[in-house]
């Protein structure tokens, strides 16, 4: 009987039998419900990375720009002039599949909390979203709700959402992916950590009261789904961005006044992970009085209190004498603030209830979960991948039809119907908003937003009653004043500040390529981010990642994971972009019973998503990806291979993409990107675009129709020996860029190219291929399309999916 009961509890908490035995050994008895709850949350894949830890160690994580690498709430890089940038990306896949609006909203809320916990004010968000097939009946619902949820939270917080990606593929029919990224800015000396708490310090709970939402969220996110998905709704948290906005301001105010010793947000596993990790990182213990935790549901049990994932809560530690001051700040912002315990020397957490000692648990054992080196095996489907012999496939009869199918494909088409639901201009730092290939942000002077004492505001010395407005009579010499506004001449922020510096953001993944070859696909994902940053004129600096995979207990998935890590490692090392933070999301798979009563498991493709941050010296020089002016000349910089393996063209037109993707020559790539960055910094090019999904045709057509202010066209003449037309136009991730420049700059470009090739010992090719025209997209004699028609289809394809 007891055995059956134990098994039930185990099932509920997601621990394996071996793990249960191990816990029994550690605490010297069978764990009760409270102990089991805490162990199972902290030992879940989501919290302790038991299947990935060994492999993540292989990723490059250090370098001169890195101030804090993986392990804290977010990574930190040096931004010069005493500033740092704090960023991280995190998945919220499982909650978003159960309840897409709240799941996505709280994903955004959680990642912003990770960033402001470190003392940084969030300044930009990105997201990477993956949904099922367009023909799947639930895809419009998931897309619409996730986008609404992201907007709901980010817009209210006042943090601009400046970029992202939206991908549709049948492999996400039963497991959508929602990955959210936040970057914040702080002063170097103003970084806060979850370590450093001293014995006798006060443990303070701030923010929303604890409720019944999200209990067992961490364990839920560490299991695959089955047909009972809808019973899991209670494990999804409910977000309140208004409270988080108050929490942000209150925390930053307390931090600025140096009242906080250490701090950690209550994310996955809520009060459990924050208290144990804080104690562990400080090498101390803690007393927690459960009676002092503010509750929104009366009579919650101790384990419910500890495992609740109610949002908008923080745990912080302060000096005993500072508690009253902290309490005053949170009171001002109408937030809960309660002293719930103190730091002790012994590395145990002692829980009190009803003024009595309720439980004692060892910090180290709870925090140091098991680590597994799981079996890996090359997947069987890989045998079906055969090198592409394009000559076996006929050439399309009408390229115009194929070209339109590609550019109207929602994976390629504009995501404007999505990003216009996000406030991307708030904060007045967005220099290049969504719609170009990556976002460029400037950094406004950083100032304290303290509310002044009313009495100390100088009098204006005039009678207000005298300025009752009437009809204005005289308003001459106005243009002079307006022209006087010179943005480069601002005084705010201090004289020593580098006024024009900025950063460039990009997020990318390509799961189809990762399915075919997780190594090559992961290299492409990193390369693609770096390309977009280079095209804007930026230099890649660091990476954060979300590694979305199916169950690590499946050796074939583990093989995908290890190969993907190997690709990330090689590419990140080459681009000199350490992986400073990130997250792993396993168990993105769902078991269903099919018509014949057989259990079917649908697994997502391996989906490593990379977000890269780059720096740009002068945001005024940032280059966008679309053409600017009729008559500008168009050049192809780099080389074309014409490999259609795994491409969208092969998938859409020939219904067969099981071919090896292009392997990127990283040494050539580094030089090519250096070249492109140089062109931007020299101010030689008006637009620069890489060649990604959909190939050269899509790069050219997008450049023509994506200018927000005017409709343009392009006329191209380009032939490469040995590459037939479909391979020329639709091969993806070619190591080449499309740039446009004013006619008079042509000679400068050629000269620059010669000098570059000599000094970098490079052989970057520069080909004149045509010019920007008025209203037609014409490529060789194969494609001729009207720009206005293409533009309409390009901007409406995703709108047609939204509810």
């Amino acid at each position, binding site marked *: 009987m007891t055995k059956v009961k134990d098994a039930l509890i185990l099932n509920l908490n997601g621990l394996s039998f071996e793990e249960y035995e191990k816990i029994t050994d550690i605490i010297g008895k069978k764990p009760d419900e409270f102990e089991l709850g805490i162990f199972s949350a902290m030992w879940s894949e989501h919290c302790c990375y038991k299947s990935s830890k060994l492999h993540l160690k292989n990723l490059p994580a250090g370098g001169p720009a890195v101030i804090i690498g993986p392990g804290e709430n977010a990574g930190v890089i040096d931004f010069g002039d005493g500033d740092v940038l704090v960023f991280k990306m995190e998945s919220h896949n499982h909650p978003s599949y159960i309840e897409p609006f709240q799941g996505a909203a709280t994903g955004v809320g959680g990642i912003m909390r990770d960033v402001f916990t470190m003392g940084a004010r969030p300044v930009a968000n990105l997201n990477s979203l993956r949904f099922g097939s367009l023909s799947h009946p639930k895809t419009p619902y998931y897309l619409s709700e996730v986008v609404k949820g992201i907007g709901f939270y980010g817009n209210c917080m006042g943090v601009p959402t400046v970029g992202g990606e939206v991908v549709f593929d049948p492999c996400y029919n039963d497991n959508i992916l929602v990955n959210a990224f936040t970057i914040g800015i702080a002063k170097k000396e103003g970084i806060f950590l979850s370590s450093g708490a001293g014995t006798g310090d006060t443990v303070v709970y701030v923010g929303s009261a604890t409720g019944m939402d999200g209990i067992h969220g961490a364990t839920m996110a560490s299991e695959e789904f089955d047909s009972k998905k809808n019973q899991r709704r209670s494990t999804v948290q409910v977000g309140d961005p208004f409270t988080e906005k108050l929490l942000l301001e209150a925390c930053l105010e307390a931090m600025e006044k140096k009242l906080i010793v250490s701090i950690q947000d209550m994310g996955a596993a809520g009060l459990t992970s924050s208290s144990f990790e804080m104690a562990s990182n400080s090498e101390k213990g803690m007393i927690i009085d459960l009676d002092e935790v503010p509750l929104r549901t009366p009579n919650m049990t101790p384990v419910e209190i500890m495992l609740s994932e109610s949002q908008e809560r923080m745990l912080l530690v302060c000096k005993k004498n500072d508690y009253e001051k902290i309490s005053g700040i949170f009171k001002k912002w109408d937030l809960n603030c309660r002293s719930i315990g103190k730091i002790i020397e012994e590395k145990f957490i002692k829980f009190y209830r009803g003024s009595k000692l309720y439980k004692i648990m060892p910090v180290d054992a709870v925090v140091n979960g098991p680590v597994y080196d799981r079996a890996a095996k090359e997947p069987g489907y890989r045998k079906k991948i055969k090198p592409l012999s394009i000559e076996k496939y006929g050439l399309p009869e009408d390229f115009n039809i194929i070209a339109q199918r590609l550019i109207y494909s929602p994976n390629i088409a504009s995501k404007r119907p999505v990003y216009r639901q996000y*406030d991307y201009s708030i904060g*007045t730092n967005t220099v290049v908003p969504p719609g170009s290939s990556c976002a460029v942000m400037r950094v406004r002077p950083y*100032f304290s937003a303290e*509310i002044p004492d009313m009495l100390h505001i*100088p009098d204006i010395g005039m009678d207000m*009653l005298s300025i009752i407005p009437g009809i204005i009579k005289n308003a001459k010499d106005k243009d002079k004043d307006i022209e006087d506004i010179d943005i480069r001449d*601002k005084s*705010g*922020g201090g004289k020593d500040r580098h006024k024009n510096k900025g950063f460039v953001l990009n997020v990318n993944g390509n799961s189809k390529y990762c399915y075919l070859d997780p190594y090559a696909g992961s290299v492409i994902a990193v390369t693609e981010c770096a390309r977009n940053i280079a095209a804007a004129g930026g230099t890649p600096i660091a990476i954060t990642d979300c590694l979305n995979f199916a169950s690590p207990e499946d050796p074939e998935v583990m093989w995908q994971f290890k190969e993907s890590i190997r690709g990330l490692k090689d590419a990140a090392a080459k681009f000199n972009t350490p992986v400073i933070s990130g997250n792993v999301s396993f168990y993105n798979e769902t078991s269903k019973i099919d018509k014949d009563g057989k259990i079917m498991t649908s697994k997502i493709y391996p989906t490593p998503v990379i977000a890269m941050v780059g720096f740009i010296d002068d945001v005024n020089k940032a280059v966008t990806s679309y053409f600017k002016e009729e008559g500008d000349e168009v050049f192809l910089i780099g080389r074309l291979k014409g490999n259609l393996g795994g491409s969208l063209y092969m998938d859409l037109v020939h219904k067969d993409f099981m071919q090896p993707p292009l392997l990127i020559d990283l040494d050539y790539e580094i030089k090519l990107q250096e070249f492109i960055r140089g062109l931007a910094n020299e101010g030689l090019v008006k637009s620069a675009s890489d060649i990604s999904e959909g190939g050269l045709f899509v790069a050219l057509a997008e450049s023509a129709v994506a200018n927000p202010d005017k409709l343009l066209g392009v006329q191209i003449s380009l032939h490469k020996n040995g590459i037939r037309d479909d391979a020329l136009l639709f091969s993806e991730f070619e190591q080449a860029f499309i740039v446009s420049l004013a006619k008079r700059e042509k000679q400068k470009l050629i000269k620059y190219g010669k000098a570059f090739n000599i000094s970098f010992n490079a052989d970057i090719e520069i080909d004149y291929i045509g010019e920007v025209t008025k209203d037609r997209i014409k490529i060789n004699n194969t494609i001729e399309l009207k720009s206005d028609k293409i533009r309409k289809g390009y901007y409406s394809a995703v709108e047609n999916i939204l509810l």
Partner: protein
Amino acid sequence: MVMAMIGDKKINAGITVFPGSNCDMDVYYALKDVFGLNVSFIWHKDRLLDCKKYHFIVIPGGFSYGDYLRAGALAARSGIMESLKEYADSGGIILGICNGFQILLEAGLLGGAMLTNSSLRFECKTVYLKVLNKGTPFTCMLENGSVLKMPIAHHDGNYYAKNDDIVKLKDARGLIFQYCDINGNVTAEANPNGSIDNIAGISNGKFNVMGLMPHPERASEKLTGSIDGAKIFNSVIKYIKNI
């Protein structure tokens, strides 16, 4: 930088801060660093002890009180609004932007109400505005019929008032800005939220209180895409200097 001074004194601008205001720092930055004003925040729980300290006051955008109940409804009943009403009555200049516009409506300082956008979605995009009345402190450096480029970002910007009230508003020349296309044509296509008569900004009868859905503070520097918003702030500054 425009040094906005009166004699040897700087112009004082106040910015209200409600819980959930999130454009407060954007406006602060624009007024202080771009226009060189003396700027301070006004906390929602305070009362203005002396209205004379401010030449003008901005109610910035955001989600005051989380937009709970209705956008602007709770802020309109908070402590500071009593003072702002007195300030407006005594002729003080108030600009309500986005959520600030919603608050002015809810507080009764302007007439009408905001409905949810006709798309039922949050809309963030660049719009064009046509100036209808240059005879206000907010438009005195503009010409009637001129077109401004500015971003919007809101969920509830669909201005509504009864037909009679719209007629009265127009008669009183309180219709200040309309959404239009790049050439100044007021069309249904150019209307981002379904507002009556493409209304984007209105003022009270004395022209000292204006509500505006688009964000002039986000269009005050070339770098962020437009300086047309600066023309509104410059008008206010010019107006105050010329009194």
